[in-house]
């Protein structure tokens, strides 16, 4: 158990030292003294600090080795009129904290009277038990050796793989803290590690192709390096034999990563902040309305063991928990902060950031069939010759340019992708293409799911079949 909650009974010290980590009692004491000095009665604070080391390599040579010590504090202050101001800083010294507190108080004069955040009613509720082992950091030269070996092994997998232009092995020790003047105290420590390998392959007279893989773990020693190499190699090699695709409408099979990327890009559908701001496709009365095919289930579950580095609490101290968003194709709940929950008359859901206007965001999705439903078409297998006759199936492996090609407030998307055209069970990489559509159309055109749900960095999802999507080829 690495996340803690405590009462306000704290000793007095004069500050905290970023290099040594966050000292919750010291920060609380410092804030209380400063607040008294400046006549501030209500405040809260979110703080984080981390130490990171990372390496990148280039054809056997170290490319860049990096280390970082970071600290950050965001202070919110409620003024006598009940309006909120905020200030952020990387300076955790007493002088830095005081400047932040005074700055937040000054900014509160411009607080929004129509939408004022308050302390989360759940900021002192029990936190979930998370199995997040703290692993020791390894020397950076050990990281370098590991990555050099991984790169070499990946390059040896196929003669066409000439470089691994995007690669990195990183480890982090981090802490998060939430305090408020009503006595809430949340503290979480984490260690995480990540590995990514994106290879570039090129055959004579052919265009270069690229693909990769990512792995996350609580420590470097637990990273599935071999699996990452194998997946990066397999994906890259699978794109070497490519061809154009005719523009038209196809049944598409989204890989778990691709489907989760698409859902994530349109998460304003489930976001109460976006609903209240008028930029969501969902209206205030959308709860209980059909949104998707009647066998689709979608949850946000930051607590899933596959979510490496899951937060135990959000920016307002609300505990993270599993939330049903869509069940049986019907919209069940929105993601909430304290302020949006109050506006809807429900409890906060643990998805808030911290600010004068509090953002709301999803954590980790679970996609699959609704229990008790028929689950859509059964026995789907894009490798089966009988299921990819005619024009064939388009397997969408990874989507690109989501920041540019998604119009979340309109529902539309037009996105480049890497993938394969499968005909008669034979897959051939697609040279270059975009997929376009409307998210509501996608959610209502799901045919069914293929295979077991897979854990990815963004969530849990099986392959998802969607009919009649528009594909534009570069032919």
């Amino acid at each position, binding site marked *: 158990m690495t996340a803690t909650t405590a009462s306000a009974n704290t000793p007095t010290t004069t500050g905290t030292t970023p290099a040594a980590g966050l000292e919750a009692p010291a920060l609380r004491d410092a804030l209380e003294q400063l607040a008294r000095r400046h006549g501030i009665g209500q405040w809260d604070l979110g703080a984080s600090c981390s130490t990171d080391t990372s390496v990148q390599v280039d054809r056997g040579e170290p490319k860049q080795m990096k280390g970082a010590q970071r600290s950050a504090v965001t202070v919110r202050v409620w003024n006598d009129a009940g309006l909120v101001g905020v200030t952020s800083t990387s300076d955790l010294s007493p002088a830095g904290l005081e400047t932040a507190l005074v700055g937040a108080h000054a900014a509160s004069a411009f607080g929004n009277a129509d939408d004022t955040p308050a302390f989360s009613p759940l900021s002192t509720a029990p936190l979930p038990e998370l199995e997040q082992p703290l692993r020791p950091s390894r020397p950076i*030269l050990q990281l370098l050796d590991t990555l050099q070996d991984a790169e070499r092994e990946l390059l040896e997998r196929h003669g066409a793989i000439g470089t691994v232009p995007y690669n990195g092995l990183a480890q982090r020790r981090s802490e998060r803290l939430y305090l408020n003047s009503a006595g809430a105290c949340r503290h979480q420590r984490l260690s995480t590690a990540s590995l990514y390998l994106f290879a570039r392959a090129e055959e004579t007279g052919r265009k270069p192709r690229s693909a990769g893989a990512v792995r996350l773990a609580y420590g470097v020693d637990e990273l599935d390096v071999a699996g990452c190499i194998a997946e990066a190699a397999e994906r890259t090699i699978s794109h070497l034999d490519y061809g154009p695709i005719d523009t038209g409408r196809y049944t598409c099979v989204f890989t778990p990563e691709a489907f989760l990327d698409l859902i994530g890009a349109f998460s304003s559908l489930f976001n109460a902040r976006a609903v209240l701001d*008028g930029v969501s496709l969902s209206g205030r009365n959308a709860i209980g309305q059909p949104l998707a095919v009647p066998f689709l289930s979608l949850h946000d579950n930051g607590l899933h063991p596959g979510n490496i580095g899951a937060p135990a609490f959000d920016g307002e101290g609300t505990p993270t928990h599993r939330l049903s968003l869509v069940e049986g194709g019907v919209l069940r709940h929105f993601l909430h902060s304290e302020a949006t929950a109050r506006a809807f008359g429900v409890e906060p859901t643990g998805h808030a950031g911290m600010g004068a206007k509090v953002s709301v965001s999803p954590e980790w999705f679970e996609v699959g069939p609704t229990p008790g439903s028929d689950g859509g078409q059964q026995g789907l297998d894009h490798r089966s010759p009988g299921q990819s006759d005619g024009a064939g199936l388009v397997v969408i492996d990874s989507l690109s*340019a989501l920041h540019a090609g998604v*119009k979340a407030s309109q529902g539309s998307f*037009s996105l480049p992708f890497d993938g394969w055209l499968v005909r008669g069970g034979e897959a051939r990489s697609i040279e270059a293409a975009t997929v*376009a559509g409307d998210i509501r159309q996608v959610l209502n055109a799901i045919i069914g799911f293929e295979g077991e749900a897979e854990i990815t960095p963004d969530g849990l999802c099986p392959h998802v079949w969607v009919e009649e999507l528009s594909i534009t080829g570069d*032919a």
Partner: protein
Amino acid sequence: MVVSAPPPRLLHLDGSLKPRLEALLAAGHAAGADLVEVFLERTDHIGVLAEQDGITSVSPAFGTGAGLRVFRGLRDGFVSTNDLSEAGLMAALEQALGMLGLELTATAASGFDGLPALRDHGSSKADWLEHCPELVEATGRLLEGTRRLEQLGRHLQVRRGSYARDWQEVLVAASDGTFARDVRLHQSLGLSVLAADGEHRSSIGRRYGSSGRPDQLRQWDVDASAREVCESAGTMLYADYVEAGQMPAVLANRFGGVIFHEACGHLLETTQLERGTTPFADKVGEPIAHPAVTAIDEGLSDGAFGSLSMDDEGMEPQRTVLIENGVLRRFLSDRAGELRTGHARTGSGRRQSHNFAAASRMRNTFIAAGPHSPEELIASVDKGLYCKSMGGGSVGPTGQFNFSVEEGYLIENGQLSKPVKGATLIGEAKEVMPRISMCANDLELAAGFCGSVSGSINVTVGQPHIKVDAITVGGR
């Protein structure tokens, strides 16, 4: 009341730091480093958001930090920290040295000759921050903008105005004798709307940015901006989706320059050379684009969003001709790029903050004006797409680029016809650059943000109207 509390003078980034920095650089040199570089910064930021007819967010932030980089041979180690105490900086140096297998030593002799007098680019900019608009004035201007949107627009469901002011003081010291200071002021402001009528929706935004112009918000033509946004939103509200396929395209000036930025500019950074991800690695002196294309990257244009007095490695920026009449002339290079690729530095070493090592990045990048009128370009197309306003874009590791079209029109028989939406342009740099066959005479620049290896930085893109003979348009 000022925009925010003044930046705390916890650290004076000036010549008084010279002895401390010299000690740090000497220690690194004595340990065996070829070169040690220290980047110090102080920042002061304010962000303001107006929605409908109220201010919904005021977000001040300030900070300090350092980035230390150590080179030995072709290798380097980089450490960033918020701890600017002597002990904190020495610990960061020790960590960076350790990445290269070096250790701090008690040896006094370092071979480091000390720093010269400070080159202070910031001395004339000391009053920039206090000349920026106060918060009352800033919020007032934004609310003026959202009110004007309400007056000019139809079916507007959401009206937003935003303003960001980023003040940064930097000091760079390196054991090659670099010792320079600068003050930067970047401001950006914008208006955006979401229009909705039944099932029809359009979302349109415009953003404007400047560097070194404390008066930008006061000089902002609110009416013109609101009018442009509302007209575009109204036009696109009922637009049909574009039909997909290969077709000629005419791209408007200003932010249309994102095509060169994504399709080619990134591939002319030595960062890409080092990765082996540019198809132009051995093409200097050879044609890579249509002879109609001359492309330039510079950091000098007065007030432009990507302009600098010095880069983040202390070098003064240049005007770099990248492509001249279709022939590749130069790559953009930083310190590491010069070391590893042999391409001389161009004052293009840039980073978002002390948390990133500098890398070769674009500044103000544009295609030069040509001889044609915009109307001539459109008249030359029988059936194609006119891209009046662009969204964002990106380029991948194989050189394939993409960008979205925010406001588009069909071209039929040499004339603009109906508006279309949902278009994405995709292609590969090697293939599309030779297809830019006509450049108009109406070069204009536009501010933007570019995210890459050294973080998100302010840049300018630009071009005159250009014609691409054939490009893949993704749509429905």
